[in-house]
């Protein structure tokens, strides 16, 4: 299982702040493709993914139990 977190515009787009998927061994790239198919408002050109609170690369593998956050363009400060 992987735990997904949605923030800001992506929370608005999905209508949820988290959910759990019964998958593992996906790459980050595969997960983003899944999100693009399932939700409007996801754009792999601007969204980053954090796995267990660290930015991950497209080819990184998501393991069972990981917490995965979709990070839209940040605007702190």
């Amino acid at each position, binding site marked *: 299982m992987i735990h997904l*977190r949605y*923030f*800001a*515009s992506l929370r*608005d787009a999905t209508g949820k702040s988290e959910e759990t998927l019964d998958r593992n061994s996906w790459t980050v790239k595969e997960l983003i493709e899944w999100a693009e198919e399932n939700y409007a408002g996801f754009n792999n050109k*601007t969204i*980053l993914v*954090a796995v267990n*609170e*660290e*930015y991950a*690369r497209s080819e990184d593998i998501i393991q069972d139990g990981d917490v995965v*956050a979709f*990070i*839209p*363009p*940040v*605007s*702190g*400060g």
Partner: protein
Amino acid sequence: MKQFEIVEGPLHVQQYIDYVLHPGAGAITTFTGHVREWTNGVRTLFLSYEAYVPMAEKKLAQIGSEIDEKWPGSKVSIAHRIGELQISDIAVVIAVSSPHRKSAYEANEYAIERIKEMVPIWKKEIWEDGEEWMGDQRRKPFEGGNL
């Protein structure tokens, strides 16, 4: 308070200055980012900030480590507020001490640039006729930066 923190209430600058002050400090710079009423002729009513709190605090601490490495002898503390902020409220405070002033200015400006680049915090602007989540258009793609 923590050296690097996301908080839900008002930010008080003096607290962060006190944190970085020590007998070897000859200079302290602070930066505070405030909610501005007018941007390009559009009036902001208030702002709402959201953060991925544990990751944001880690990333603020990472900025602290980067500063330690680039400006040895400096000491930094950073806090960002989340929730609803009114005009003139402080959204972020950065305090940097260093033996000499040049480092204190440089490290402070470095910190705010890095925050805007990669700390998972989001701002929603609320105007009279709508609202929108902001995203930094100048943001570097993942491949180019050291996120």
